């Protein structure tokens, strides 16, 4: 499997570390309630198809959000978590830490 790093271009999967589902970026507000926090911390989908997850490109130290298809191993898109987080902050200013 090869993953396109937004910094480095197409690289071998051995250069990456898997972190987990991309929902980690969408942190609930501190007062969102037990159910929201339980879901955020513990509940994950296991889709047969398109999924979004977080990978770390070890050599260049970039966190990357990867959209990929679990049925075909095709990578649909990648972008820096820095950019995804900025977009989330813009969409939900009340969730600012």
């Amino acid at each position, binding site marked *: 499997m090869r993953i396109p790093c937004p910094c480095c271009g197409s*690289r071998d999967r*051995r*250069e990456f570390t898997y972190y987990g589902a991309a929902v980690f970026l969408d942190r609930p507000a501190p007062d969102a309630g037990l159910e929201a926090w339980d879901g955020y911390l513990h509940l994950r989908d296991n889709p047969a198809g398109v999924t979004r997850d977080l990978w770390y490109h*070890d*050599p*260049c*130290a970039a966190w990357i959000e990867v959209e990929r298809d679990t049925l075909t191993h095709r990578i649909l898109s990648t972008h820096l978590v820095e950019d995804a987080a900025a977009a989330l902050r813009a969409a939900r200013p009340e969730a600012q830490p």
Partner: protein
Amino acid sequence: MADLKPTVPLAGLNEAIGRARLAALDPGRVTSVAPWPGRNVDAALAPLGLHFPPPGTVIAAQGARIAWAGRQLAFLIGAEPPAALAGVAALTDQSDGWVWVHLSGADASAVLARLTPLDLRPSAFAVGTVARTVINHMQALILRGAEDGFEIAVFASMAGTLHHELTEAMRLVAARARI
């Protein structure tokens, strides 16, 4: 206070095996340059004739070089950092932190290909560019100075492992050529 003498890892290394040669390399002063968020370091680098390199790029001028070395990180090589740089970037002296070797020869690519998942074809890794990648389990910085010439840097504490991995791969490639 003990009088400690600085030593250079792999000093004097110059080993030819088959059609590849591994030699020690002294890049001079190496400083990592990490621009503070939102700051532009180009004006501070201008006295050296340099600017901050885009990913994969090496810029050279007046004997100094600056090589991209990771996300929002570059290595200034062979020059003292200009004073103005300290105001716009985090600077760390890496001269003793990394060990550098030069791998050259007709089989240099074949040797490296045994150790790194990086695509070494010149169409993917062009002469004059730089890549962050891994050499087996070691984090590495590789500058391609020529089609068959690579400057390779890893953390200085791994100098012995780098030497072992590279010479072992050189031996295997040479043995393969004799079949």
